[in-house]
């Protein structure tokens, strides 16, 4: 009798775990543990941008970079700047740099609290105050307004890379869902944009 009760309880537990595991893809986001205490402006420094040999025009490149900022709730495009990325200067900057032969983009945290003190839902977060993004000048870019491959050759989607990097800037980390913007791998000529997973992540960050 007792054995039967145990078996039933075990069966319920297994079913419960199975339901829970099936429900997880509906919340496929990951939080880094930081969040912005208030909406943060991100400035764009277009200097150093390489416009020759691209699949898109100079203005399309600018739009693709800034277009990667605007989908997110916690940050907004604040205009252009002459300030340099990876400097602590009170300004969140996305800009261009020669990042060498293998690196397409780098996100740098420049100021954040080390301790989590900010409640949001059932989690605690640390405040983030400044983050910069650098995008490489070494490779060819395209965007939703361009072709891929284009006459010049294969390229990466600049809007997708910018949106992905700024997803990290708002406090999202990588997920294990290949279709998601925050999946840590994508291919040449593969375009992605913010979707439901990322929106749920924003909600979980209380933005």
């Amino acid at each position, binding site marked *: 009798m007792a054995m039967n009760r145990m078996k039933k309880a075990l069966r319920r537990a297994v079913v419960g775990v199975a339901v829970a595991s099936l429900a997880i893809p509906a919340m496929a986001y990951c939080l880094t543990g930081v969040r912005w205490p208030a909406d943060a402006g991100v400035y764009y420094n277009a200097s150093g941008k390489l416009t020759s040999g691209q699949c898109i025009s100079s203005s399309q490149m600018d739009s693709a970079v800034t277009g990667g900022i605007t989908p997110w709730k916690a940050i907004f495009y604040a205009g252009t700047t002459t300030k340099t990325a*990876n400097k602590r200067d009170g300004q969140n900057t996305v800009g261009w740099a020669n990042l060498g*032969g*293998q690196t397409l983009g*780098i996100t740098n945290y420049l100021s954040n609290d080390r301790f989590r003190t900010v409640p949001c839902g059932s989690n605690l977060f640390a405040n983030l105050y400044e983050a910069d993004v650098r995008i490489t000048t070494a*490779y060819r870019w395209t965007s939703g307004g361009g072709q891929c491959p284009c006459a010049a050759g294969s390229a990466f989607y600049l809007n997708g890379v910018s949106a992905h*990097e700024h997803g990290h800037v708002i406090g999202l980390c*990588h997920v294990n869902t290949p279709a998601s913007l925050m999946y840590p*791998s994508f291919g040449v000529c593969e375009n992605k944009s913010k979707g439901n997973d990322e929106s749920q992540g924003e909600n979980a960050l209380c933005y």
Partner: protein
Amino acid sequence: MRGKLSWGAAVILGCLAVSAALGSTVIGLSIEDQARLSKWIVVGEVQSLQGVDHPVNGLETAVSLKVSDVFKGPAKAGQTIVFYTRGGEANGVISEAVGEAVFRPGQRTLVFIEETDGRAYNLGLSMGVWNVLEPTSGRPSFSRAVQDGLEVVGTTPIESGPLSWSDMASRVGWTMTHPDFDESLLRDAAARRR
């Protein structure tokens, strides 16, 4: 079922993670292509770390490495070379470059080093850095010291090792006589630079 549970656990653990793992993006490359991009490939011991504030590139760390073995490049055993990482601490300000390699004094490491605008950097953030695994006898082997937060683009599988000393030496050596990149994007980028 088992896979789903493991995946679910990974997501939950990720959601509870304390560290601030942001992301940086690198192209997935073969070891051969990494070797072709590198000016130096050396094994050595980290002597010191020094934060610097570069006028253009921002906060970086100068890593002094005492070379013990050279797979590629104009370096000799016993020589100390300096390369930079893409984040650092200077004047009380910390810049954390996500996915960048982490070094500590005394650490023995294998580093692929490229030269960008006349300055030496480890190649592809932590993708260019390998742990040296010391065996009880014989030569060490290597395992890639990739850090959390790297996004990898492209279709090339990433080898994490362990890779034996002789394998690493022969694969790097092969690129000396076969300089054309495997990855078409690299061939394309090289042509653009010419």
